[in-house]
């Protein structure tokens, strides 16, 4: 990181600390019905509420109609792998979960409740998620260590009748796929006959590998490389992997049909794209490694805070398209481009699940946006969070796919879903803007005066 970037980071950290302390949290509970006098509670609470409860008791699905369940998402975590900070515990994960809830509200109009818990085994977390299901329209798993996160997601996908989403897997995978689809389009290649190498076999890359295969990449044309080298079915530690991480084991069996052995240098020979989510750089990837790739090669160097190799160096080593996880370089691969709209979409049609095919559709729609807008270039393979139209667009693609797969409780058309999503998101934004204008949410400038006194 450059000196100015380091300074900027320090400044941001300082601001985050003092503002978070001043505002004492980022989210609060706020009513959505009129209360003009205490008499109104006869409607919202007893005796009126009993009739509503009876209606739901008769048909539990009505809880999506009569309560805020349809728009309520639980952000569930055990704090076992928070950002790049590791196992810092549930309390310390709360600031991150509140931040996620804020993004959900602002970009997706979703009411997300942060719920960091003292539960550590997969069994405990799975049981807990099943127990809280009646209160929520969906469960968002966040910052749970790998490989525990795979097992929890798989089991909840089986057991819950509401959608479950693990952002570190599916969110990242979805944005990676969207970015890759556009990168391949720019270089005149197709996913179905491309050769892709993934460096790092953590949650994000394993999920991205599975999603790329769902989207049409030939498993045999994919090579995974972890800290021990190229993954292949004959590797000596295959049984260790089978016991410790069966998801990685399955990929080891299905991928690398040419049985490439060795390290990253052997893996990237002739590869069209390299997706690295391994160790922070800037020297994790050597220029000489990149030079061995195919013509018009694509590099996603996603480690934070510093990519595996700096974009300027990667460019010199011949990379045609470079994406990172950082907002201060072009082409940021950012989960926030996808999770608010996927949840908006599944909520609006009251989907029971989020299968991989739905995430593929979300990624394709996200990719299509830059192409349709005519803004697709090597320096701009993905929209940014400023492109607010992507949220209702992706939500409607997601909703439509859920309807066609028969997992939606509501049968809506794409246009209806789009209008609905747009309305909910716009209303949420208007509310936030309006309370800011009325100063119930104080502006930074007025707070600065108080803090600096």
């Amino acid at each position, binding site marked *: 990181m450059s000196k100015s970037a380091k300074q900027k980071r320090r400044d941001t950290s300082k601001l985050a600390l003092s503002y978070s302390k001043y505002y004492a949290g980022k989210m609060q509970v706020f009513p959505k019905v009129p209360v003009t006098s205490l008499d109104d509670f006869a409607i919202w609470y007893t005796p009126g509420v009993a009739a509503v409860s009876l209606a739901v008791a008769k048909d539990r699905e009505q809880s999506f109609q009569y309560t805020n369940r349809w728009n309520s998402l639980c952000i569930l975590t055990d704090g076992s792998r928070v950002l790049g900070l590791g196992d810092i515990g549930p309390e310390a994960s709360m600031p991150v979960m509140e931040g996620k809830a804020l993004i959900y509200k602002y970009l997706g109009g979703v009411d997300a409740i942060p719920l960091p818990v003292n539960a550590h085994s997969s069994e405990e977390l799975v049981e807990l998620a099943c127990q809280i299901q009646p209160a929520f329209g969906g469960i968002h798993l966040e910052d749970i260590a790998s490989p525990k996160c795979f097992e929890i997601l798989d089991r909840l996908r089986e057991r819950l009748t509401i959608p479950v989403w693990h952002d570190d897997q599916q969110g990242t995978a979805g944005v990676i796929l969207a970015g890759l689809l556009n990168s391949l389009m720019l270089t005149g290649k197709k996913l179905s006959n491309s050769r892709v190498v993934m460096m790092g076999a953590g949650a994000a890359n394993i999920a991205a590998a599975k999603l790329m295969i769902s989207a049409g990449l030939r498993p045999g044309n994919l090579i995974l490389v972890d800290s021990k080298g190229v993954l292949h*079915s*004959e590797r*000596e530690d295959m*049984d*260790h992997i*089978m*016991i410790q991480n069966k998801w990685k*084991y399955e990929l*080891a*069996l299905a991928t690398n049909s040419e049985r490439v052995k060795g390290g990253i240098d052997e893996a990237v020979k002739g590869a069209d794209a390299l997706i690295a989510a391994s160790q922070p750089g800037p020297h994790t990837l050597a220029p000489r490694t990149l030079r061995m790739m195919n013509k018009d090669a694509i590099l996603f160097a996603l480690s934070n805070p510093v990519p595996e190799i700096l974009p300027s160096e990667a460019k010199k080593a011949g990379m045609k398209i470079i994406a990172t996880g950082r907002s201060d370089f072009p082409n940021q691969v950012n989960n926030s481009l996808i999770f608010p709209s996927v949840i908006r979409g599944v909520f609006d049609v009251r989907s029971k699940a989020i299968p991989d095919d739905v995430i593929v559709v979300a990624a394709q729609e996200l990719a299509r946006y830059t192409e349709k807008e005519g803004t697709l270039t090597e320096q701009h393979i993905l929209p940014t969070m400023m492109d607010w139209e992507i949220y209702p667009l992706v939500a409607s693609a997601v909703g439509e796919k859920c309807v066609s797969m028969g997992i939606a409780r509501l049968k809506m058309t794409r246009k209806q879903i789009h209008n609905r999503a747009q309305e909910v998101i716009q209303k949420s934004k208007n509310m936030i803007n309006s309370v800011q204008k009325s100063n119930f949410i104080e502006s930074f400038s007025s707070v600065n005066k108080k803090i600096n006194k």
Partner: protein
Amino acid sequence: MITLAKSEEKKKSGVVIRAIRKEDAAQAAELLARLKRLNGEFDPLLKTVTVIEAAAKRSIDQAMSSENSVILVAVEQNKVVGLVKADVTDRAFYEPRREGAIVEFYILPEFRRSSLGKELLSAISEQLRKKGADLITAVFPSQNEIAKRFYTKLGFRSLTNVYAKAD
């Protein structure tokens, strides 16, 4: 050591099951070492010694020269992809009087889930019965749920337990 007649060799998508030969010994030992390391995944008391490869080779050589041991291998184009070893013993106190105990069983990852395991098991059971063993047993780590499922599905049940305590 027993030898299977040519007609008894089983073929499945290029994989042949047959008695071990001298030229298979080195590869068979590699598979045995893999099995022992896999066992180590289940329990710290099964952590392998550092010279596991040499120990595996010795074990294979010994079994090949013993009348009471049977080793079958699954081979694809000269490559050993699976291994099963059993020992035949007399039972002094119980009926049936002769036991064939499957003590080693390993298949390379990419050859699993292809019914090769089932075929290896039935091939070795046949050999053990020919040696007079009317009881077939299998020994594996208590925590190995994969083995438990495999044998249970094929009609086996738990017979004796080994409990362990290290000082």
